[in-house]
């Protein structure tokens, strides 16, 4: 301990360090009755060109459209036609089935790693629906819904997961680190947070060029603690950048709850206030609210009215990844008890309430999605699964480090080829 002049000791109370602790730990029975959930339709909807402070009350409430009665209500109701709703529902179902199949594939030893987005499907799929296909996303690893919604072939996704012959990333990336320029989906980084200010940079470029395309950056609640979050917010605010900055608050970051990222004292949406940009807090399990918020922010950005920080409030219903077992740090039934429900069930119920859907159609659609995923999987597995990879085309390992292979990599390639892989 450092030196200290005892004469200066005071009668002040002892200081104490507060270490946040989630409300429930394994063994506890979660009780969410104290969680205040504003009613659907209650939040006002400012004009898209409103000064940012007008949105700030929305950073502590929750934009919700789908009510207990499964009806859409209030000023945020995006009034979508049934086809659009069915499309979002189908995308969500596809994502969930895809996740299940790929999770299983990892367990079967067909690849090294997988990450589901169970419970969060509405966020990426409805966001995709709300934006033109040539806007650019800078996603994290839980926005597979963007690719599905934008029609990126499932086989391509699986090829990447298996690092197989069809993998356009040439076996170089961990599974689920997709990239596809044509579908406006920036390369996912293993390094948390990095993509958030990159999205801002892309949108700055679009603005410099007088283009009309905007960018959307994505980040998890845990990763908001990285310096990159602050870079993104600062640059977005300074240059009034046409970008949507989305924080998916699924309340967990591996084993740490959102309090470890600052979630105890403020919402993540509230960060918008200190930068003077628009902020919205949105029920992430309500596909209509997600759609409406993204549409609002996108219209705002596209009219040079500035960036928006959106917090999607949701719950990570499964483990962090195939390497994680959440029963070690939270009650196993927490996901089920969490009050904002299942986004698939909620949208399904809404369509049924509208008379635009029924159980049979839902079963049929689910079966179709299931077949599509299975067919894609079969197709992809023809191109190989991970354990068979890394043996041929070893020379390719030295491509793309630079545009052209410099002499030292050419030499290393020679050597690697002479080793014949393993």
């Amino acid at each position, binding site marked *: 301990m450092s030196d200290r002049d005892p004469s200066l000791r005071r009668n002040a109370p002892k200081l104490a360090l507060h*270490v946040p602790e989630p409300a429930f730990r394994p063994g506890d029975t979660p009780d969410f009755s104290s969680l205040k959930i504003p009613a659907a339709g209650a939040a006002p909807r400012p004009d898209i060109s409103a000064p940012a402070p007008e949105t700030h009350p929305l950073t502590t409430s929750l934009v919700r459209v789908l009510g207990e009665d499964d009806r859409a209500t209030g000023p945020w109701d995006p009034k979508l036609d049934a086809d659009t709703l069915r499309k979002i529902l189908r995308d969500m179902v596809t994502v969930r089935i895809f996740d299940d199949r790929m999770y299983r594939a990892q367990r079967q030893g067909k690849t090294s790693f997988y990450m589901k987005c169970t419970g969060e499907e509405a966020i990426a799929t409805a966001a995709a629906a709300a934006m033109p296909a040539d806007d650019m996303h800078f996603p994290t690893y839980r926005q597979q819904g963007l690719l599905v919604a934008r029609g990126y072939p499932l086989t391509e996704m699986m090829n990447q997961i298996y690092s197989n012959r069809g*993998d356009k990333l040439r076996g170089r990336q961990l599974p689920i680190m997709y990239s596809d320029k044509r579908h406006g989906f920036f390369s996912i980084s293993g390094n948390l947070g990095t993509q958030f200010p990159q999205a801002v940079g892309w949108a700055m470029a679009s603005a410099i060029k007088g283009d009309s395309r905007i960018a959307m950056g994505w980040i998890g609640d845990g990763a908001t603690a990285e310096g990159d979050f602050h870079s993104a917010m600062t640059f977005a605010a300074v240059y009034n950048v046409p970008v949507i900055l989305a924080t998916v608050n699924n309340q967990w970051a591996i084993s740490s709850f959102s309090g470890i990222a600052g979630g105890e004292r403020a919402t993540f949406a509230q960060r918008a206030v200190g930068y003077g940009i628009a902020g919205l807090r949105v029920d992430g399990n309500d596909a209509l609210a997600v759609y409406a918020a993204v549409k609002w922010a996108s219209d705002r950005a596209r009219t040079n009215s500035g960036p928006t920080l959106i917090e999607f409030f949701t719950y990570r219903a499964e483990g962090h990844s195939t390497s994680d077992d959440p029963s070690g740090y939270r009650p196993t039934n927490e996901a089920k008890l969490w009050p904002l429900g299942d986004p698939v069930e909620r949208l399904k119920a809404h369509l049924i309430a509208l008379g635009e859907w029924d159980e049979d159609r839902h079963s049929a659609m689910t079966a179709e999605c299931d077949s599509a995923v299975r067919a894609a999987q079969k197709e992809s597995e023809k191109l190989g699964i991970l354990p068979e990879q890394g043996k041929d085309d070893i020379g390719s390992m030295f491509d793309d*480090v630079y545009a052209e292979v410099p002499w030292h990599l050419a030499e290393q390639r020679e050597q690697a080829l002479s*080793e014949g892989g*393993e």
Partner: protein
Amino acid sequence: MPTMNMIQALNDAHKVAMRADPDVVVFGEDAGYFGGVFRVTEGLQKEFGKTRAFDAPISEGGIVAAAVGMAAYGLKPLIEIQFADYIYPGYDQIVSEVAKMRYRTGGEWTMPMVIRTPYGGGIFGGQTHSQSPESLFTHIAGLKVVVPSTPYDAKGLLLAAIEDPDPVIFFEPKRIYNGPFDGHHDRPVTPWAKHPASDVPEGHYTVPLGKGAIVREGAELTVLTYGTMVHVSLAAVEEQGIDAEVIDLRTLVPLDMQTIAKSVEKTGRCLVVMEAPRTSGFASELVTLVQERCFYHLEAPVERVTGWDTPYPHAYEWAYFPGPKRMKRALEKVMAD
């Protein structure tokens, strides 16, 4: 003596240090309640309480900066960076602050702290869970850099690092957390229990920083290596039937140059082995030092076995990892030249 794998040995080192010194505090991402994604800090929060072992926000820069402030206060932070691949957001605080503090203040403020981080490949972790960035820290004056290769050393070196008055970057070869690895990924994994260095004494002991270990004596060739590659090197020289002296450096900075020079002067040949990318890696420093100091004893150029100058490619794990074939070729070359 209890048998421990490397995780258990490291965990035990934490407990020994925290019991002995109330100023040792542990934090990192997932390092508190859950005990870390590799479970190295398991049980610490339970035993030492939430204010001595806790979860940190996902901010490697903030974690290191908080440790700087704590060290300035007089505590001894023992922090975890979840993967070495994620240490870069903390690089500025490490390079500009931790490393230079004693110097820039004429010794007024010192930075006794340990930054632990799992590094290295062989686990199909892809580009962002496989890196070996140790060389980037050996270039920074003011830092000590340590890499254990067995449970015994892991505990002893970690305790020495915690007690050291200088900041130590402690790289843990994650591939061998649960058992040594000879580079033959197609063969069954051996657990640590079968290795003599899994006999880890209870309680306090240290393995001194700055001292390498001759893990195999030999007359024909000196192999300089550390971490996972110690085991790969040992297996390779056995397989090739070379009477090599294998030195586990254990500490990269400060380096045990005496042991190295003595060995190379004896053998006249030298091979340096690391997982990290080749260009400007620590292997180059080793080659340079050996040729500077043992030039007239050298019968052949010093050879390097290294990772390639590419990011770590997921599917090409075993074409990237410097395994038995790369070792064989280099051994043949250094012996033939």
